[in-house]
């Protein structure tokens, strides 16, 4: 159990709800993942029906909702979307995405910070999706963010923690801030590594939704985040340049001693 913005959470895995083969697979994957927090978006209704099956599914899943501002490219768009999300979902949590480049979906740090400042003024708890620049992360904290979500790699790329040193530095320099690796995670080992580095959680979607068996992969990520956190708490051994025998040298049989003497 851990605390995030006054919420008690069991899981350190935040799961996206997009791209699943079917609504049933989504529900089964959410259950298998053990997640407490799922991400959602706002879009124009595409079908002619006035019903919204996804809305009913969210009610059934009964998880903490983290709406996003995906697709926004300016602070103004993101602020409007966040305001709409707050009313629709009844939460002041917002995953703030302001995209600066359509090829890499890299966040626009300037628009992000502008939107962040305004939304915090309006009472939101902002989860900014940002790149792994320490100074940007510090500025977001200065603006009032209690959670920072640097990317591991571009959204949907599945490349893992491309710049682990930068992520490590952010963890070291912001020891009291909740850190979540958001985007780019493709395998459970990536998630475990993020938790081993001391990150508080990971947020992912495509790695589960696009897996051959999304439900099994959701469970794999559940176990990986648990293992990563346990490893972080256990304290990893210090790395060494040279080999150090783990088996005691004292009491070696005579033929080993003869080999050493011959050298």
């Amino acid at each position, binding site marked *: 159990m851990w605390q995030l913005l006054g919420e008690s959470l069991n899981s350190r895995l935040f799961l996206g709800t*997009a791209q699943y083969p079917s609504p049933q697979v989504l529900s089964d994957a959410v259950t298998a993942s053990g997640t407490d927090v799922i*991400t*959602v978006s*706002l879009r124009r209704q595409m079908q002619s029906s006035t019903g*919204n099956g*996804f809305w009913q599914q969210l009610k059934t899943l009964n998880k903490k909702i983290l709406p996003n501002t*995906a697709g926004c490219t300016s602070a103004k768009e993101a602020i409007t979307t966040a305001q709409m*999300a707050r009313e*629709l979902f009844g939460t002041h949590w917002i995953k703030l995405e302001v995209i600066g480049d359509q090829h890499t979906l890299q966040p626009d740090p300037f628009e992000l910070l502008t939107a962040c400042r305004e939304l915090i003024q309006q009472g939101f708890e902002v989860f900014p999706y940002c790149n792994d620049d320490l100074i940007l992360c510090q500025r977001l904290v200065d603006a009032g963010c209690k959670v920072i979500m640097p990317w591991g790699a571009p959204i949907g790329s599945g490349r893992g923690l491309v710049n682990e040193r930068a992520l490590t530095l952010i963890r070291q320099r912001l020891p009291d801030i909740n850190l979540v690796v958001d985007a780019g995670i493709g395998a459970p080992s990536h998630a475990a590594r993020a938790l081993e580095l001391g990150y508080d959680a990971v947020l992912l979607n495509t790695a589960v939704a696009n897996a051959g068996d999304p439900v099994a992969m959701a469970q794999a990520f559940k176990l990986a985040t648990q293992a990563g956190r346990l490893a972080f708490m256990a304290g990893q051994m210090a790395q060494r340049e040279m080999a150090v025998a783990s088996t005691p040298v004292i009491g070696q049989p005579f033929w080993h001693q003869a080999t050493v003497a011959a050298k």
Partner: protein
Amino acid sequence: MITILVNGKPEQIPAPENLQNFLQAWSGLPEHYAIAVNQQFVAKENYPQQAITAGDAIEILVAMQGG
């Protein structure tokens, strides 16, 4: 009649008094939604005060899957 944009599509409607009147007359209204007019969020309690005039762009958004 006036022409407005609803979720990006032009629609000709009788000039409504306000957003609330428009929504009551609009057949495609989903059960759960949030609204922006001309890229500005309009809270539900402000629908009766939100004027709708020719050329306005109304966005009616619903919950959708997201990452």
